[in-house]
């Protein structure tokens, strides 16, 4: 009998921790965007990039089973993007993202947006090393999606209700949807916006900017702590000699 006591996803989690350390060392705020196909993730990304460009450096990792269409849409905004095709795979994993980072090499103190494969199930279980998972749900979907796909809403820190400009034409019950999300995850934050009309976008942009600021100051804090430690050690060395 061989005792193992190891998480089934431990290999992915090891890669995810390596990514997380790397992001911390470089002051990068990393968001993993997840949703079902067609929720408007790519439009949300291109609109966010257009509005944030010039304010902070941005890079994008695009995950899809096939095609580089989305990475091309992102590149058209002028920011660097790399496409990861998962082939038969239904989700990005931390190893794929680590590999993409080698090529993308995002700069220090920047925003890294990862657009996961459109799938409300599998990406929930795979930590990529991100600061937060953000689940995008469009109001053209059902308000019971958080109950149908609880794992994803449980894993996310923020739910974005997208396409709110369409609300007047729909029967979508916003309050019921938010209640369903909080039923699965009482701590989930919620933002309502329309990437198309721009309504509600400011809160989301502020959230991203605050994240980058926090990542940057954490990095600088660490660098400062290391500098102080070097000074201390040098002083100790001097005393001894």
């Amino acid at each position: 009998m061989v005792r193992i006591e190891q998480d089934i996803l431990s290999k992915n989690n090891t890669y995810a921790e390596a990514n997380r350390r790397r992001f911390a060392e470089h002051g990068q705020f990393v968001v993993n965007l997840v949703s079902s196909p067609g929720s408007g993730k790519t439009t949300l990304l291109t609109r966010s990039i257009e509005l944030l460009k010039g304010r902070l450096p941005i890079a994008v990792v695009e995950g899809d089973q096939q095609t580089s269409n989305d990475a091309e849409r992102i590149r058209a905004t002028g920011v660097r993007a790399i496409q990861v095709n998962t082939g038969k795979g239904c989700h990005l994993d931390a190893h794929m993202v680590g590999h993409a980072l080698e090529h993308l090499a995002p700069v220090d103190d920047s925003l890294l947006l990862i657009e996961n494969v459109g799938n409300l199930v599998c990406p929930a279980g795979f930590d990529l090393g991100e600061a937060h998972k953000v689940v995008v749900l469009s109001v053209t979907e059902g308000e019971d999606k958080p109950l149908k796909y609880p794992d994803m809403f449980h894993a996310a820190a923020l739910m974005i209700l997208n396409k709110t400009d369409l609300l007047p034409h729909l029967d979508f019950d916003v309050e019921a949807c938010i209640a369903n999300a909080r039923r699965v995850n009482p701590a989930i934050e919620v933002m309502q916006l329309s990437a198309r009309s721009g309504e509600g976008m400011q809160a989301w942009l502020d959230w991203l900017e605050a994240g980058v600021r926090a990542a940057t100051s954490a990095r600088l804090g660490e660098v400062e702590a290391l500098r102080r430690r070097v000074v201390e050690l040098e002083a100790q060395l001097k005393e001894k000699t």
Partner: protein
Amino acid sequence: MHEMSLAEGILNIMEEAAAREGFARVKSLRLEVGRLAGVEVEALRFCFDAVIKGSVAEGARLDILDAPGEGWCMQCAKTVPVDALYDACPDCGGYQVQATGGLEMRVLDLEVE
């Protein structure tokens, strides 16, 4: 969830253990899968049988142990049993319940030769 990736993860753990411990064959293995882990046990069995062909675990018996779901109810300020992430607290009926147990999926041990 994507039970194929999980089955491959289990195979990977067994192959690493075989290289480390120097055994040739896995006769059986025990997994612990929590009720809130989002794993479809029948789908996992199906994928497991597919990925172990030609490996150190070919023909191995898979025992899956259930771990109960638990959550912390903020209203009652105590741990309560839950069967799904969207379950209400069985005592107060509220939904201020954060899952705390039953999220694990682990390989416990292997019987080898």
